[in-house]
């Protein structure tokens, strides 16, 4: 009997330790994280991150289509990889970046590039400087829509599946829609037809364009002297 008491004590105790160290303690340390606020003479001049609910629907599509099984949303520092040198961010991401995300999509795999800052105009996935081979295109909404519909028209070696079901092919009645995709070659619809994004695609792209975790934070060294000085 004594021996099975030891067994139970060990099993319960080890679970309690695991739960305490990896769940309760981190929650205690990180659960209360607040946005970074910069004040100037008592007035709030800067606040980050900002709670933004307008992209929740797009984010839900990002999750339901499982984008995060191929795209991470976390930038590592120079000691832990080449994320920064690749242009996926200007600083590493930290816990404070995610405080307003109930279920953050950090991702564990990179079959595609990291998207933590894909909405930032500085984001790139091509080489520049000494390695540059071609000039990166501007990634705006129409670029993203085209890329979702037919990835290989934009990046010829892309390994991303096409998301045609987020679009519909319609007969052009009167004038061509403003948001119709500029498709050429085999992907182009029949004459008289056009491919337009469904609301899901538009929301998903709006969410992607909202992704930007490059705001300077005081806990990230070298990210922003002007804020860090506060």
């Amino acid at each position: 009997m004594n021996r099975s008491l030891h067994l139970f004590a060990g099993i319960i105790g080890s679970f309690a330790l695991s739960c305490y160290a990896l769940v309760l303690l981190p929650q205690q340390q990180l659960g209360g994280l607040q946005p970074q606020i910069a004040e100037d003479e008592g007035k709030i001049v800067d606040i980050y991150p900002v709670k933004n609910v307008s992209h929740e629907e797009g984010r839900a599509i990002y999750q339901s289509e499982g984008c995060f099984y191929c795209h991470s949303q976390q930038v590592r520092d120079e000691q832990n990889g080449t994320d920064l040198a690749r242009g996926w961010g200007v600083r590493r991401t930290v816990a404070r970046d995610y405080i307003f995300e109930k279920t953050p999509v950090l991702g564990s795999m990179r079959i595609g590039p990291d998207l933590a800052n894909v909405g930032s105009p500085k984001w790139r996935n091509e080489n520049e400087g000494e390695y540059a081979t071609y000039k990166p295109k501007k990634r705006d909404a129409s670029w993203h829509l085209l890329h979702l519909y037919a990835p290989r028209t934009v990046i010829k070696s892309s390994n991303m599946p096409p998301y045609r079901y987020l679009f519909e092919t319609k007969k052009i009645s009167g004038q061509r829609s403003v948001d119709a995709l500029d498709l050429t070659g085999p992907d182009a619809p029949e004459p008289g037809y056009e491919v337009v994004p469904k609301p899901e695609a538009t929301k998903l792209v709006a969410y992607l364009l909202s992704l930007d975790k490059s705001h300077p934070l005081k806990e990230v060294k070298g990210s922003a002297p002007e804020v860090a000085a506060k």
Partner: protein
Amino acid sequence: MTAAALAPTPTTAPAPAAPSAVQVQAAERAAIDASASGPVLFFFGSAILWLLLATVLGFISSVQLHSPGFLADCPIFTYGRILPAYNNALAYGWATLSGMGVAIWLLARLCRVQIKIPAVLVTGAIFWQAGLTLGIGQILAGKTTGVEGLEIPGSAAVLMLVGYMLVGLWGALLFGYRRQAPAYISVWYVVAALFWFPWTFGLAHLSIQLPGVTGVVQSLVAAWATQNFLHVFITAIGLATAYYLIPKVINRPVHSYHLASTGFWAFILFSGLTGAVRLSGGPLPVWLVTLSIAATILLIVQIATVSANLLLTMDGQYHMVYHSPTIRFTVFGVLSFTIASVVGVLASLRSFDRLLHFTFFQSAQTHLLLYAFFSMVMFGAIYYILPRLVGCEWLSSTMIRWHFLAVAYGAGTLIVSLAVGGIASGAALADPGMIFSQVIEDGVRYHIGATLGWVMLALGHVIFAFHFLLMLFRIGQPGGEPTLFAPIGEEKH
């Protein structure tokens, strides 16, 4: 390959006890098996159906990695839904159900208790699978929680947990009413597994509902739950089974009780602290990842003691892998456990992790543990247990041989492809001058290898499922002598 000992080895027990005592023990075992037969067969049968589903899903997801357009126009088959459906079908369908079936049978046998009201276990398995079916359906319909590793929505997870609790409770009762003291090593591991799982699963799913858990803590909870599932629950049941099967089939006691004890305590203490390695390099406080790396390194104590103990028990009896299907599968599994664990320790180190994180190397590690270790041990266990439940022996040693060849080479091809592909892309990405999309394009060839592995696995699983079906209809060899690859004492290449 022909190094097996020629000496005829007696495998039947020398029977030190009086014949009447032996007969009494045999009758008791038969009664226990009869009481366990219904639920355990139900667990195994459903587990194999889930394995077949997982095979289809795994194959599709593998093809999509080299042909991204494959089935892409149908939302339910998009890679981002197929992959989590595959992971859940394999982990919570095949692995958990087969593991629970083996665990319940081991507890009944080792505690020497007959199972009362076996319908409770069957009900538990039905609830579990109803929840899992609903959950996977929701994943395919795009209604996931969006948390990697905990994709199954809350309502389905509750059904699963209710089902689990029925099984877990019956397991606890078997232990409570045990007539065999002290408890054997396998019982320690099974009891630990049965206790850890519901708490981890329940707390992790609860955290998704709690508004106070947000941000990276939520990701950490998911990583913790995934790690506990694989490295505590699954590993514990796999080791419990190996600790039972190896001594039983070769008919000698475990090499060392002290090694077993040390290994168990190291396992239970350190395994649960390793979860944060899944987020190594990520946006977490550094101490968390450091703690998990340290715990992973300390697990060397368990890896060394368990591997040494099981392999030393086999010492001098390795020729049994030529004869006994159970031993062939189980020894393959134990060797995979050792490799998976050593690779796990190395890969957790920061200098390796920075290269291999976010690559298919991690997928290779998961398959090494969940398939090459756990699933192979489960196959071995089912080959051992089933004849005792249905009263006849497996029909064809050729089918078992083909099953082994297909899944051993299939798993090997899959895991090596993923691992080499992961190392290649990780090494390439370490150079910032390498264009990302180029590295991904170069990696496509390894997924063709992985798909080839899946074809072999599928072949093996179909053979196994067919053989299992024959056993359910009592189509097999007459009971008594196990179906061996070759009679013991005869040389077989």
